[in-house]
């Protein structure tokens, strides 16, 4: 089966059967990303919603408590964008932490998006552990968004 056939869905080619993939609402994916678990909650998957929200939040809070640093773009390091994208996966938690660390003035400085502080304490014993928890939380929430996409599309129950 070709990739094109896979993405077009199962119903096509049979006169547009009723099992064709549903269109996915982009606002649903947006809220799913911004608030971990909310996408599943809106889709009626309440248990999964609570578990995902708890796991992502617990991982993020553990990372912050361990003095970990959230990833921010750095001009001298293009690879920092990869880490930033992973960490932005935390959605609202990421932006709240960024605002907490930098304040409004620091957040919207002239050099934006560079020059931001990711917080944390590099001297702390838990610094790298904290970063691991923060990145893990972000990547897990990105997987949650993909899961919401699959459920909304009808590919998964």
């Amino acid at each position: 089966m070709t990739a094109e056939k896979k993405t077009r869905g199962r119903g096509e080619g049979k006169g547009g059967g009723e099992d064709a993939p549903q269109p996915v609402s982009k606002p649903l994916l947006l809220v799913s990303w911004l608030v971990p678990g909310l996408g599943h909650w809106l889709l009626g998957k309440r248990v999964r919603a609570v578990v995902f929200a708890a796991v992502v939040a617990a991982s993020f809070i553990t990372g912050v408590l361990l003095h970990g640093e959230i990833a921010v773009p750095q001009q001298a390091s293009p690879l920092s964008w990869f880490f930033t994208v992973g960490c932005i996966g935390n959605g609202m938690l990421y932006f709240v932490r960024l605002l907490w660390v930098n304040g409004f003035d620091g957040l919207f400085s002239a050099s934006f998006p560079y020059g931001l502080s990711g917080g944390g304490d590099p001297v702390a014993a838990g610094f790298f552990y904290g970063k691991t928890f923060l990145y893990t939380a972000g990547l897990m929430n990105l997987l949650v968004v993909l899961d919401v996409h699959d459920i909304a599309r009808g590919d998964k129950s």
Partner: protein
Amino acid sequence: MDHFLLLFWHALLVAVFFAFLWRSDSRGRKALFLKTFLIMFVGAIALGWLMFPFP
């Protein structure tokens, strides 16, 4: 800071997450949770011991 506790906590969170992400039934979730948790938790300790003789 207890490294062992952090290892346990991280493995627990990730194992719960993937159990609920990849399995829909209770039995499947328990099995995947146990498998993932043990691989991460016991595997990390085993790797630590294996690395012990190396400088």
